[in-house]
């Protein structure tokens, strides 16, 4: 096309573009968290931004000095210790410390006989004596000429003995399991997400999974196909909040948990779960008194921290609207939140 004509038409089109209304997307402000004023946070919420650890408490925001980059903060029920995944260039380890990031202790090795290792998503048990976490420890040797699976499995670490053991063997070439948590109120149950493939043609599937650490039995709580993930257990262990992927978003649901499971239930418990919040939601976590759920929600291109009041009187439901704690802050949505008294 004649370039002069092109320029003329283009100018007209660009003029139209200038008049076209659209919702502007936010841009990451860098290593800054922008709090919304007058929204006090009860207790202490831990979150990461650009792999730095932040603590929200009341209207105070504190950046914790934790050395190199971290993700997936976890906290004991008493709030006296925190654990994070500390990231190096090609590996990560589980590190515990006091609530201010001091007196750090590295629990898992950055490498083993099988090569360099990942470790993520620590979670304390009710007494703070054990940690459940994800690692690719025990993987077979792999090279570009001889590719082997290196999926993440669920392991536990005993803080008294320093011993680790595998709890769950992941399905090969799925990326492995995610989001492990000990169930509060009992000593021998886990909930986590199993990743696999299902349907015809095959598609990615994520299933909520209950496990007895005593017997090793596992029971799926959500169907195949479908993607239900990031389970978060209420402080009394009676409810689980989770994310369900739908064509339009990643919505927040809550469902009750039975005391134990002997077999898969039909319909699956997740199918009668209650929708709590719509949108692109990630990383739900319960308040220590179960009065609210905090989560990250995508708003105008930024994942920000919200708190939603929850009532568990006759049925579980949202007791108000979600309040934004931050805005335009681009918090790390691939990193868990933690909430302590």
């Amino acid at each position, binding site marked *: 096309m004649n370039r002069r004509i092109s*320029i003329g038409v283009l100018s007209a089109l660009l003029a139209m573009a200038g008049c076209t209304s659209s919702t502007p997307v936010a841009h990451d402000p860098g290593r800054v968290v922008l709090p919304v004023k007058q929204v006090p946070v009860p207790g202490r919420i831990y979150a990461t931004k650009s792999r730095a650890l932040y603590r929200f408490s009341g209207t105070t925001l504190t950046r914790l000095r934790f050395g190199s980059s971290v993700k997936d903060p976890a906290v004991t029920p008493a709030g006296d210790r925190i654990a994070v995944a500390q990231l190096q260039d090609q590996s990560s380890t589980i590190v515990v410390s006091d609530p201010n990031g001091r007196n750090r202790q590295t629990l898992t090795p950055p490498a083993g006989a099988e*090569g360099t290792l990942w470790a993520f998503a620590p979670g304390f048990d009710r007494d703070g004596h054990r940690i459940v976490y994800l690692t690719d420890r025990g993987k077979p040797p792999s090279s570009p000429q001889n590719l082997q699976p290196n999926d993440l499995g669920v392991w536990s670490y005993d803080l008294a003995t320093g011993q680790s053991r595998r709890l769950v063997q992941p399905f090969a070439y*799925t990326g492995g399991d995610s989001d492990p948590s000990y169930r509060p109120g009992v000593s021998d149950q886990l909930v986590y997400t199993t990743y696999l493939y299902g349907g015809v043609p095959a598609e*990615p599937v994520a299933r909520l999974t209950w496990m007895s650490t005593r017997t090793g039995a596992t029971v799926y709580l959500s169907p195949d196909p479908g993607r239900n993930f990031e389970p978060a257990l209420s402080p009394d262990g009676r409810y689980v909040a989770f994310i369900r992927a739908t064509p339009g978003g990643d919505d927040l649901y809550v469902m009750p948990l039975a005391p134990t499971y002997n077999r898969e239930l039909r319909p699956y418990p997740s199918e009668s779960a209650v929708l709590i919040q719509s949108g692109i939601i*990630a*990383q739900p976590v319960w308040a220590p008194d179960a009065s609210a759920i905090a989560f990250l929600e995508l708003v105008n291109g930024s994942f920000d921290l919200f708190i939603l009041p929850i009532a568990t009187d006759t049925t579980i439901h949202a007791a108000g609207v979600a309040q934004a704690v931050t805005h335009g802050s681009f918090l790390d949505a*691939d990193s868990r939140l933690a909430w302590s008294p």
Partner: protein
Amino acid sequence: MPALGSMNHSPATGVPDAPGSHRLRWIALGAIVVALALIGAVLIYLSPVLALLEPHDPALGRVAGAPAATPPPLDSKQRINILLLGSDNDQKFRGDALLSQTMIVVSIDPSAHQVTMLSLPRDLWVEIPGHPSAKIDLAYALGGAPLARATVEKAFKIPIHYYAWVGLNGLVRVVDRVGGVDIDVLHPVLDDNYPNDFSDSGYGTERVYLAAGPQHLDGRHALQYVRSRHGDLLSDFGRSVRQQQLLLAIQHRVAGMDLVSALPTFARDLNGHVKTDLDLVRLTQLALFMRGIHPGDVHQAYISSYVRDATSADGQQILVAEWPAVHAYLVQLFGGDLLP
């Protein structure tokens, strides 16, 4: 030149011009000067865009061929098909022999206000015009965009009106330029042998981990997400799904951008990393159209149900299509807008 305000005489009649006529002439002259200045400014402003859109294929250093079907006129409501090509173009590959690791036909139907993205598996065994049958990703290496286009048109009967090629750096820059993308990562991505594209040799590997779930990805991590296939049982099909996810996420970010100020900066960043035969006006027209597209207007299409694994005579692991079923599927997608 007379001073402003002095009376002028018409050379033809010798009758003094009316003061109003004189003023009009100066206004007209001023308008022309302003218009020329504006055109010059627009040309300077858009020069990076014009440089990006030079219609040649740098991978081969030769002029690209014409499509089998003429692109619809600008004011038409006819369907427009664009072949998106993605290549490894790091140091370990010769610039004139790049495989197209990604092939996606983006079909825009202005009348229905719909967009369809159809992924073509790179291992699909096809007839390449003028060459022996081979995997479809070889077409770009053998003859650049013209041959890739001709191969797709011959095998799928889809008229390809334009092409756009992007290298690894180009993809990273596009994503970073739009401020990153928001993606629901479908599975954890674990890859201990991910090609380190940006190492000096281009032959190194690095370890990659991306957690599952919704998250914000920068260019480097978005590339890892769409490129890794070692930890995905669905292999290339899984990768196609992720690539389409990324395209949608980029479209979503672009929809919220100020196109006027973004376009030249984009073009300056991408020069040498993205090549296309889209002309400037069409590109802008399509960009404006895409701003008005909502997630429900975009359809993701795959031919995975109509292909099966096989081994070629020379021992390559390939995919073989059931072509009647593929063409029936394409008729569903494209209606009567296919080549005879």
